[in-house]
Each structure stands twice: as C-alpha cells, then as structure tokens.
C-alpha cells in the first residue's frame, strides 16, 4: 500500500517533467500576424534597415541612427514621412491607408522608437544653437538670388573642403551636383544630412563642418543653393521606356 503514492508521484513527475522538455513549443515563437508586430526593433529591421542601415548607420539613405538625429527629430514629422513617403524620392509609402503594410499603431511605434534613438539620443547640452531639423515648408527653386549667393558662400565655407570648390566632388566627398542625385533627393534630406552629418561615413554635422557651427540660416541657404542646381529634365514623372 505504501508504494502506491510513491508510484503515483513518479508517474506524475515523469508526465509533467516532460512538459519542460526542449521540444515543447515556446509561446514566444507563436506566429504573429504582420499587422500585430509591435516590437520596434523588429519593425525597424524589416521595414527600414534595407536602406537606412542595420542600426540606422552605414546605410545609403538618411542617417537615422545618429544620436543627434534622435534628439532633433520631430516625431510627428517622422511619422508623417514614414506613413506617406516622400514623393519623387525612393522613400516609399508605408501606411496601410496608402497601400503600404504598416498600421497606425505600428507607425507610432516606429516614430517613437526613432525619436528615442536607435543608438541613444544626444544630450540637450550639446544641442545649443542647433538649427531646426525640419525646415519651414520651402518651395523648390524659389530661392532669391541673394539667398543663393549666401548659400554659395556657406558652401565654400563649410562644404568645399571635401566636396570640391565647384561642388562636383573633391578630396573626400563626392559630387553634390549630379542632376540624378539632386533629382531624387528632397530638400529635407539634404537639410538633415547637413545638420546631422554622416559621422559613420566621415562627414561632420552642423557643429564640426567649419571653424564655428553653422547657423540655421546658413543651413537653409546652402540647401537652397544645392537645390537651385536641379534640372527639370528626368524627374520621376516623365518616365522612360525603350522599345
């Protein structure tokens, strides 16, 4: 009679012990609908890393992983750009409402995650005097001659050292005036790169470009000057086809 509870206990341990074997499916591996993914890292990796780099750096597109970017970015604007894309540039529409795949909630998660910073965020003390990252809605090609002259001056001061005196490439920076480049880049992307820089690729931001930091006006002027080199031919809208 004594053995009975013992035996029972053994069977129970054997049976329940099995429930902790490695073959037991882990609920964490459970299938998640793409629309239910709410992990920022996963969302970033599957939707953004292709162009912007695995940790937001060293990618061909805008540098999102710089702590400076995280500190200066406006999350509302970031969300809008992810949702609607940027027409005329390679940045696609991601919102479901626009034919993309991300839900409203996922757009918020991405915007918040980028604001929090892929590699942390720059401390406020180092941001003093930083030009606003988002420009006031500027219209392409409507800069005044005076602004363009100031822009050219700013270019010579801050950019020419690497990108060449003419803007067509220099010691360590490639040409900025290729029509195809200017035709596909938005003013905002130019502005973001001028301000944040591409430290991953050896390009300084607004603070380190010259002997003193660039002013907000100089940033706007140099972007306007670069934009003035756009040619109207070859825009996305015109399209080509060869038969």
């Amino acid at each position, binding site marked *: 009679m004594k053995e009975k509870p013992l035996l029972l206990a053994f069977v129970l341990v054997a049976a329940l012990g099995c429930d902790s*074997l490695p073959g037991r*499916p882990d609920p964490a591996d459970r299938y998640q609908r*793409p629309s239910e993914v709410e992990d920022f890292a996963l969302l970033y990796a599957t939707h953004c*890393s292709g162009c912007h780099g695995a940790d937001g750096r060293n990618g061909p597109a805008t540098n999102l992983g710089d702590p400076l970017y995280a500190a200066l970015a406006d999350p509302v604007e970031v969300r809008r750009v992810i949702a609607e894309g940027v027409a005329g540039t390679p940045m696609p529409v991601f919102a479901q409402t626009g034919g993309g795949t991300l839900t409203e909630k996922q757009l918020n998660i991405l915007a918040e995650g980028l604001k929090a910073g892929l590699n942390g965020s720059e401390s406020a003390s180092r941001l003093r005097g930083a030009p606003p990252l988002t420009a006031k809605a500027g219209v392409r090609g409507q800069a005044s001659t005076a602004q363009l002259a100031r822009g050219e001056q700013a270019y010579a001061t801050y950019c020419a050292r690497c990108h060449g005196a003419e803007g067509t490439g220099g010691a360590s920076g*490639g040409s900025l005036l290729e029509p*195809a480049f200017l035709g596909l880049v938005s003013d905002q992307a130019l502005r973001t790169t001028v301000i944040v820089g591409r430290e991953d690729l050896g390009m300084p931001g607004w603070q380190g470009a010259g002997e003193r930091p660039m002013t907000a006006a100089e940033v706007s002027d140099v972007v306007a000057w670069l934009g003035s080199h756009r040619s109207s*031919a070859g825009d996305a809208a015109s399209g*080509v086809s060869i038969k």
Partner: protein
Amino acid sequence: MNRLRAIGKWFDDRLALGRLYDQSLGHRIPFSSSSWWYVFGSATLLCLIIQLVTGVCLALVYVPSPDQAYASLEYLDYEQPLGWYLRGLHFWGSNFMVALVTIHLVQIFLFGAYKYPRELTWMVGSALFLATIGMAFTGQTMRFDQDAYWGVEIIVSILGRLPLVGEAATHLLQGGPIVGAETLSRFFTLHVFVIPATLIGLLVIHIRLVLVLGISEYPEPGKVVDPDTYADEYEQVVERTGIRLMPEGGGKDLVFSALVLMAIVLCAALIGPKIPNGPADPSLIHTVPRPDFYFLSLFAAFALMPPDLESFVIVYVMPLAVVLLFAVPFISRGGERHPSRRPGAVILVILVLTGLFTLAWEGVVSPWSPEMDAWSGVPVQPRFVEDRSPLEHMGATVLQAKQCRNCHALDGAGGKRGPDLAGVATRLTEDQLIRQVLQGGGNMPAYGNHLSPHEVSALVAFLTTLHAEGQAPARDSASWARSARESPGSR
C-alpha cells in the same frame, strides 16, 4: 502455475491461439531472411501503430473546421498538457513512416524480392506506399496553417491542369469551387477515415501475402528465379534452414523497431512538433508557403522544369511513374535477384534517390523564389556604402526601394533568383547595365516603365562601383580601343 496453464488452455481451446501463432508469428522463415536488411517493413508497421494511437489522441482535441482548427492546434501546443508531445510524436512518426516505407520499398527493389511469386505483394506494397504519401499530404493539411492552405491551392492548381476532368477533380477535392470549410472536412475525412481504412485493408492483404508466399530468402549471386522450380526450392530451403519468425528470426526486427521508436520519442521530446506558421487566412499575403519535407522535391521540380513541360509532366509523366511502379514485377521478371548481378537496378535507385534529394535540397534553399522582404529588411552592407558619392548612395537606395534585392543578393545577402550583384561591374559595362535594367531579359522583368531617368542614372552609378578592389570594371571593346589610343603604352 498449473492454474495459469489451465486458463491459457481454456482460451486456446476457444481462440485456437496456438494454431494462429503457428501460422503467423511462429511460421517458419528461411534462416537467411533473418537479416538486418529485412527489418524495414516491420518498423514501418510500428510507425503506423504509433500514428494510429497518437492520431486518435489528437482527434480528441482537434477541430476540423477552418474557424477553429488553428486555435485547436495552438491549444494543443500551448495549453493541453502534453498536447505538444503528442503532436510531436505524430509529426515525427509521420516523417519516420515515410522514410521507412521508402527504404523498405528500395530494399525490396534492390533485392529483387518482388519477383515470382511475390508480384502481388509488391503491387499491394506500392499501393501502401502511395497511401502513406497520401496520409502525409492530408496530414500536412490538418495543420491548417498557411502552408496547408496554399498547399491545397497548389494541389488544386496541379489537378486543374488535367484536361477534361480538371475542373471536376478540383471541385471534388475542394468540396466546391473554392477552398473553404468543406475542403478541410474532406481532407480530414480522407486523413482520418478513408486512407487509414484503405491502408489497414491493404496491409492485411500485404501480410497475408507475406505469410502465404513466405519471406523471400536472402538473394545469392548466380541464383536465378525460375517460376517452374521456385516454389519447391523455397520449400526445401525453409525445411532445411527454417526458423520461426518469433522468437528466433525476429530479434533484429524487435531491436530495430525499438530503436526507431526511441528515435521518434527523442525527436518529439527534443525537437518537438512543427509549429503551424500562421492561420490559414488567405488575406495574409506575407507568407512563403513551403510543403513538408517529403514534398519538397516535387515542389522544387515544378520550379526548375521548363514551364512548357509542366502540364505534360502532370498529365503524362506522373501517372506513368505510378504505373511503372506497379509494373516493376512484370517489367523485370525472373532472373537474378542479387543487386551485384543487377547493375541497372542499382544505378536506377542511385539516380532516383540522388535526384529526389538534390531536388529536396533545392526546395529548402529555393533559389528561384524572390526574398519578399529583402528590399526593406536586408541592409546594404556598410562596405558597399563607404567611400561612395551621394549619387551612388542614392543608387543603392534606388536598388533597395525598387525591390531589386528581392531577387539579387549583394555578396550573398538577399534573393538568390538573379545573379549576385557584388562584382556585377566586372561583368557588364555601363551601357549593358542600363540596357538590362530598362529592358530586362534573361528572366528579369523590364523596369523601363518604373524607373525615371534619374533613378536609372543613380542605380547604374551605384552598380558600376560593384567590383572587387583591384579588379577593373567591364568596358566594351570600343572604349578599350579608345583609351588605348588616347594613352598609348598603358593598358
């Protein structure tokens, strides 16, 4: 003890167990048949028993309706105590059963055991093989996940290529013109009632044939099967060297079966069941359907064979293969049995198995499939970014945004459908790149209507940088001649 014996005798008087034993487990087999080569049939039978027992257990919880099937699977996996383990046993049992029935078939073929008088045993065995494959496919559908749903669509599309009967066949299988509730019910009925009943019925005939005709003796080189004398010779062999199947002859079967059972248990406990990959919701188009292992070779064959051949293969070659399988004993009659005297058979087996495994491996890699999320989810490696101009960066971005990476890898990362683009500049000149991008060709779509001139310029600017350090980019002969003229002496 005497009491026990008396009880035993009481039952034996009524059930004639002794006589049954003499005619079945105790029947005499040639000594040479007690071989490690002869254990696969009994091990397959063991798998069938495991499948029946675990299958019945799973049916206690599983709900064969599309709105509940996936939930009941998740319940089995995560909530029902040991549900995952039962699923694991059933899943691995099916893998082992398919493997063992195939090995059994190959062994019988290599040993010429299908020859006179065992032609019917072979044919019934072939039917058992097909029934097992049928169980595997319908079983994969029971998981009712995305693989299952699209697997059904694939089978329906294959049937749909049949002339005349295509429409009727697809509707019969789907239970209507569209995959839905009745489809799952039909597959469930096939998996749980129709095919198992057929399987058991065929198995009874198969075993009856084995008992009536005796297990084939181990083949000997030089010994020829002659229908006129075979029966007498076999009888003499059994008379001279015969041992009882149990206990003398079947020890190896028992040991091997136990090993198989332990392997199944270990796989179930350590690797576990196949986790369903998302509910069978056709609107979830972010899916990459793949069949279970045993169908990967077929899956791969449909990707790799020339498209014009596919309908021909479905309509003629596949049915012909089945007919040939059944006809083996009538194509190769009499003669030698030992594989060393039948090189043709050995070569055939090697060719078929190599082909199947190569295709299955291709199916695992499936280099023909675009990697659907590569464009946004596989980064451009930093070394293709550094030391490049803004225009080239823009080109790399265009490469990503236009989904080129879905088919083209950059140094191994990305789709495998088209050529790897790392080093493309050493193969194509700038003009050729432009032409290829705009016009496509060689299984690449034309992008002319979806790239602006700026995008083409940027993309090609980036592509022309893709050559290994120290390796010159490709140039056309005219430009080579030109540069040679301009700077004579240098290459």
